[in-house]
Every structure is written in structure tokens, then in C-alpha cells.
């Protein structure tokens, strides 16, 4: 099935720059109900998203609001009970690394592979020639600032560096969309901010559509073009906030009244749920 | 998957049914002549042998229990004591642990003939053998247990200016107890069987001796009865220590969910 749905092959894409529509993600009428030990739970309800190519969208909400489940559905790993998801105009029925790269929380790197081999992993599954694999992985590692660390094993890297490797792996097949599931949740505050800046830099250089899930208000306001705020049980979209802070974003912006107002608006929604 | 699961029996029920089936087959198969009664005497006959010769079994069991008691004291006393000591001194532990677990590979049964040569075929050789048999698991388990103690407990105790003795008795020991108990459980079972096996090899008294004598007489029901008795002893011991383990686990996790996991 995936072969039918695959985006134009690499040679085409190398010749012509990505068509803007490739990075267009749409979610229509998505809802999800699951049945665990006889208890039926409505996890997601009435989700509508229309994400234009090249946008940086952050989905934020409390734990248990279904934001990670929603992302897993957008990657094609999990299928929703109702509604449709398209990426580049074609439905996401199964994972498709040519269209969507995914970055998970820490510990998703294979501990028995070096940084280079981890980045090569998606390519090696497709039996690409060794030389091309290595060249592409090296290039991606350089993009995320890890030149010289190719032969390190994950345990020899810091938390931030591991996530750089994950991002490089997500980008190695040059997909138009990158989805990240709380990628910096396990990092300390300083590393988080640095990694946020890194991600913004990579995003600006590659022009990918980025969909980023987090529970951190600051991270959401700092990174996003648009913030999607979700409520819990069932997971619904309660607000869409257009972030009008200028780019490039700087650390100093965090102390401006505009930034505070943004955080206040998100917090308002989240506090309301906690009160219920 | 989900709707199908609803029609299935509870795992515990299936387990009971399986147990029942085993007991039933134990009775039916030899009675029907599908398995010669020499290989597998019917359950009722085995239990009958136990009841008929209750006095004899009790006598030999007591004899074995005496040896088991001493050996358990030695194995677990030395094993746990040394484990606590070595486990709490990091440099010592790092050099002892690999060697101790390496020595664990030695099949200790081959030492038994040496012990009979040295100590005769009385209880002494069995006690020495079974003590050694249970010692290493106790030692290794305790050492590993001490190692897993949360460093924060020690830091907190230090910040409260606890003395070394207080640190040992009030922090290290209580924190290590669940793992020490599971080491004791494994070591203790080995001690019990160590004594019985040693008796099976050479002796003139004890439950193991009884099993071997009946085996040479090809009296299957009485062999099985003896084995059943020892298995019951091991399971009883295991259950008892497990109970203690469960009790003490609350100290560590303070929630009941730890039980659900175990």
C-alpha cells in the first residue's frame, strides 16, 4: 500500500525543489474511541487541522489530553476510529518516512548503533548504496551540529546531543514534514532553550513543516507560528493562537508583555480544565 | 482481539484447571495402564504410601530438618553478612563481585565426594555441602541488594548526622531487606535440596536416604511420596519467605501497587 502512496521518488525531488503542497498537513473530523478492559473511552473528538507548508505548529495541552496520540495518528503509526489525515494531499494510512520524519523523546536511539549508524538506519532499511547512505547521514549530522561525533554510541552523548541525532535521523530522508513528540521533555532547562534555538535554525534552513507536541507553555510560545491548545477527556481543540512575535525569536522576548500575554492565554485554558 | 478476550477464562481459573488436570492425569494415566506404574505410580497410591509410613517419613524428615536448620543458618548467616559487608564497600564489591559470580559456575556437586572423604557419611558432610550450595546465591543476592539501595537514603541520613551504626541498622538494613529476603529464599531452597540430595548420594538416615533406598527397591510410590514431601517443604519455605518479602516491600514503596506488580 505504501508504494502507491509514496511521494515522488528522490531523483525527481532532487531535480525540482519540493512542491509547496508536499508539506501540507490536513486533519478532518478526527475522533478516536478506544476500549480498554470493557471501558469505552473517548480520547479525541472533532479535531480539525489545516497546516500550511513550512509552518511551525505547536500542539500544547496537559498530560492525558491526547496530544501525543493525535501526533501518532498523524505519523500513520496509529489509525483513528474516524476522520481522515492527509499529508501532501494523500492520506496517511501507514508510516511513510518519505513524507513524515518523526522525532521521539530521548532513548529512542538504538544503543547498539553509533550516531552515524542511527541516522543511517532508515536508509539502510531501504538498501540504499553504502556510500550514499554514509554521505547523507554525515551531512545531516553536520546540519544538527554534530560533526566529529559520528562514531559515538548514544551512551557517550549528552541528552541534547542524543536529540540532535534523533532530529538528524528524522530528516535523513528529506521529508517535507517533521513531527516531534515532546522531544526535549527529558532535558534540563538550559539545554531545552538551546535545543529550541537549534530546531528553529534547522527549520529556517530547511523550510520543513514542523508539528511539535509539548506540555510546556514557554516552549510553545517561544517556538510556534501557531499554537493549538487542547483540552482533556475527550481531547478537543479549545484554542488556536496565531503567534505574532517577530522572528528570529530571542531569549529576551520571553520577558516582554506580549510573551506573557500569550502564556497567560494558554494557561487560562489549561487552568479552566484543572478546575473542572 | 478485545471481544474475543471477553469469552476467555480468567488466567487464575485456567491455572487451577491445569493443576487439576495434572493431578487427574497423574491418577488416571497409570491406572489405565498408559504409563507403567513403576514410572509413575497413581497419585492416590503415592499419598497412601505417605500415610501408611507416616511414622518413618516423619522420623527421617526430622533428621533432615535438623541438618537443614544448621546449614541454613551457616549459609544464610555467612552469605548475607558477607554480602552486606562487601556490598556496602564499593571498591571491595567491584573486585569481589566478578570473581564470586565466576565461581558460581563451578558445579558444586563434585565437591561432595571430597566432603564425605573428609567428614564421613554422617550429617557433617551434608551440612558442609548444603551450606556451600546455598552460600553463593545468598551472598551474590545480598550484595546486589545493597547495591540497589537509593543513594538518597544515605545522603539524607548523613545530612541528619546519623552515626555509622545508625546508618547500617536504620537505613541500609531496612532498605536492603526485601532483596536480602529474596536472596534468602533462593539460597534456602538450595540448602533444603542440597541436604536431601547429599542424603540421596550417601547416607544412612534422612529423607534423601529413604528416597534412594526405595528407589533401589523399585518401590515407586514411596520414592514419589518422598519427593512430594521435599517439594512441599521447598514450596512452603518459598511461600513463607515470599510473604515476608511482600510485607517488607511496603517499606520501600509505601503503596500497595508494588504487590500488584509482584
Amino acid at each position, binding site marked *: 500500500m505504501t508504494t502507491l502512496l509514496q511521494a515522488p521518488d528522490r531523483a525527481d525531488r532532487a531535480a525540482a525543489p519540493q512542491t509547496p503542497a508536499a508539506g501540507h498537513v490536513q486533519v478532518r473530523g478526527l475522533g478516536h474511541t478506544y476500549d480498554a478492559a470493557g471501558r469505552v473511552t473517548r480520547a479525541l473528538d472533532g479535531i480539525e487541522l489545516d497546516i500550511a507548508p513550512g509552518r511551525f505548529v505547536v500542539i500544547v495541552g496537559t498530560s492525558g489530553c491526547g496530544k501525543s496520540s493525535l501526533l501518532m495518528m498523524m505519523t500513520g503509526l496509529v489509525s483513528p476510529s474516524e476522520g481522515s489525515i492527509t499529508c501532501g494531499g494523500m492520506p496517511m494510512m501507514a508510516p511513510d518516512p518519505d513524507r513524515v520524519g518523526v522525532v*521521539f*523523546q530521548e532513548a529512542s536511539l538504538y*544503543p547498539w548503533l553509533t550516531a552515524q549508524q542511527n541516522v543511517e538506519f532508515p536508509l539502510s532499511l531501504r538498501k540504499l548504496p553504502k556510500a550514499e547512505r554514509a554521505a547523507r547521514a554525515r551531512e545531516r549530522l553536520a546540519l544538527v551540529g554534530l560533526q*566529529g561525533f559520528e562514531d559515538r554510541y548514544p551512551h557517550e552523548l549528552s541528552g541534547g546531543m542524543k536529540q540532535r541525532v534523533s532530529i538528524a535521523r528524522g530528516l535523513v530522508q528529506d521529508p517535507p514534514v517533521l513531527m516531534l513528540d515532546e522531544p526535549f521533555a527529558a532535558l534540563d532547562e538550559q539545554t531545552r532553550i538551546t535545543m529550541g534555538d537549534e530546531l528553529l535554525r534547522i527549520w529556517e534552513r530547511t523550510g520543513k513543516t514542523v508539528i511539535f507536541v509539548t506540555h510546556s507553555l514557554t516552549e510553545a510560545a517561544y517556538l510556534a507560528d501557531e499554537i493549538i491548545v487542547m483540552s482533556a477527556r475527550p481531547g478537543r481543540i479549545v484554542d488556536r493562537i496565531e503567534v505574532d512575535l517577530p522572528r528570529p525569536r530571542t531569549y529576551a522576548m520571553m520577558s516582554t508583555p506580549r510573551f506573557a500575554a500569550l502564556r497567560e492565554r494558554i494557561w487560562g485554558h489549561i487552568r479552566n480544565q484543572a478546575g473542572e | 482481539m478485545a471481544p474475543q478476550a471477553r469469552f476467555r477464562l480468567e488466567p487464575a481459573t485456567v491455572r487451577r484447571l491445569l493443576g487439576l488436570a495434572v493431578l487427574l492425569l497423574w491418577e488416571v494415566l497409570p491406572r489405565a495402564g498408559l504409563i507403567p506404574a513403576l514410572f509413575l505410580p497413581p497419585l492416590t497410591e503415592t499419598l497412601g504410601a505417605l500415610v501408611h509410613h507416616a511414622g518413618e517419613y516423619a522420623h527421617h524428615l526430622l533428621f533432615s530438618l535438623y541438618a537443614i536448620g544448621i546449614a541454613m543458618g551457616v549459609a544464610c548467616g555467612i552469605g548475607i553478612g558477607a554480602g552486606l559487608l562487601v556490598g556496602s564497600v564499593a571498591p571491595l564489591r567491584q573486585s569481589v563481585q566478578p*570473581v564470586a559470580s565466576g565461581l558460581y559456575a563451578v558445579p558444586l556437586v563434585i565437591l561432595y565426594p571430597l566432603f564425605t*572423604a573428609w567428614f564421613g557419611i554422617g550429617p557433617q558432610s551434608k551440612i558442609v555441602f548444603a551450606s556451600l550450595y546455598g552460600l553463593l546465591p545468598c551472598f551474590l543476592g545480598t550484595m546486589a541488594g545493597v547495591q540497589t539501595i537509593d543513594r538518597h537514603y544515605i545522603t539524607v541520613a548523613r545530612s541528619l548526622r546519623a552515626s555509622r551504626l545508625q546508618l547500617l541498622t536504620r537505613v541500609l538494613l531496612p532498605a536492603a531487606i526485601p532483596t536480602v529476603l529474596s536472596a534468602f529464599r533462593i539460597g534456602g531452597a*538450595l540448602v533444603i535440596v542440597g541436604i536431601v*540430595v547429599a542424603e540421596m548420594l550417601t547416607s544412612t538416615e534422612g529423607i534423601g536416604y529413604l528416597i534412594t533406598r526405595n528407589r533401589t527397591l523399585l518401590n515407586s510410590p514411596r520414592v514419589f511420596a518422598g*519427593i512430594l514431601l521435599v517439594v512441599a517443604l521447598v514450596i512452603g519455605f518459598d511461600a513463607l519467605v515470599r510473604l515476608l518479602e511482600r510485607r517488607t516491600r511496603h517499606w520501600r514503596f509505601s503503596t500497595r501497587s508494588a504487590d500488584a506488580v509482584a
Partner: protein
Amino acid sequence: MSAAPPIPSHAGRRARGLLPWALVLAVLCVAWQGALVTGLMAPELLPPLGEVVTTAVELLTRPSVMAHAGTTLAEVAVAFVIAVPLGLLLGIAIAESRYWSAVLKPVIFLVFSIPKTIFLPMFILAFGINFAQKVGFGVFSTIFIVLISAFSALDSVKAEHLRVARIYGATPRQVAWRVYLPSMAPVLLEAVRLAMMFNLTGILLAEMYAARSGLGQLVSNWGENFMLRELLAGILIISTAAILFNEAVRWLETRCEHWRA
């Protein structure tokens, strides 16, 4: 971030690993000879170490001893070749089914907690005293530890790692070879090591209890006839072989695990 600092070497650690073993050997030698010099042990009960070592070397070239060793090795090998794959397959099959895990795991853990040596007389009654009985008992002694190792091997496969493979479109075969196998490798090697320990103990005991040949029978005979020089030499040989095998597999384990360091 630009310049990568050098990776620390592991050579020093290996040298430090041998030191404790040397110490144990030294203590053994001193205690052995000390017991003789102080008269704690009579030379009839504890022949001098040198004599025992010479005997050990001589035993290794004695054809009759080698024939016994051959019997034992054959029994050990056959039992091992049956028990390990069988246990792994069964264990994986059980662990992969949530339902059968719930039913059978408690039973397997219960049986595992009973030392298997106690069941030896049953095997003699059922099989008689022969090769099949030894192998059968070896398999029985070994299979439960293999089952339990298989459970923990599957537990060591992380959901995250499987998810990554699926995201990048790995086929089931690729998942098996490139995620399951490397994840499980250290635990599987440990299983091999533990299986060999249980197996060897089981078979030696079976030979000591009732047999016409095999190292266990030989050792037991030497004991009964007070041939302590041969007995101690035999113990020395068997222990050394067991330790060497164990350490060899452990070395492989650490090689496999170098990424964890």
C-alpha cells in the same frame, strides 16, 4: 561542540579484572599448603598442591579418563542443544501472548523456585540408567532458566525502539533482525551461560547418583575409594573448565554490551 574529546579506553579495566582472580588463586594456594604445614590436614586427606596438579596433567592424557569426559561432554552437549532452543522458542511463544503469559508465568516461576535435583530419582525410574536419562534430566534441569531468560529477553526490547522501526517502514523480518536480536543479545548470551551451569550440575549429579560412566561417576568413585589425589585433580579440572566456559561467554556478553558501558 566542534571537537570531539577522545573516547576512554577499556584496556585498563580488563587488567584490573584479572587481579582478583590471581588473588583468589594465591589465597587458595596459601591456605592449601598452610593447612598441610601446620598439620591441620593430613596429607592423606589433602595431598600437596604440586602432586594434585601433576596428577591433573596426567589425568588429562589418560585415555580412560578422556573416555569418561567424552561421555559427559556428549550428554551435556545433547541436553544443551535440546534445552536452549526449545526453551527460547517456548519462552518467546508464551511471552508474546499476553493471555498465556498471565496463565503460565506464575507456574513457571513456581517450578523454577524448586531446585530440580530433587526430581532425579523419578528420571531413573522412568528412563532407567542410561544416556537418555542423563540427557532428559539435563534438559529438565536447564529448560526453566532458559524460559525465564527468554521472558526477560523479550522484556529488554523497548517499545520506543520498535516504534522507530515501524515509523521508518521496517518489514517484520527487519524488525526481528535489527531490533529484536540486538536488543536481546546480551540477555540471550546470559541465558546460554546460566543454562550451561544448570545443565552441567544436573548431568554431573545424575552421573554421581547412578551411572556406569562419565566424569561424575569417576569423581564419585575416587571419593569412595579415598583416591584423594585423583579426586582433587578431577575437581580442579572440572572447575577450571566450567569457569573458563563461563568467563568466555561473559566476555562475549560484555563485547555485545559495549554500547552500554
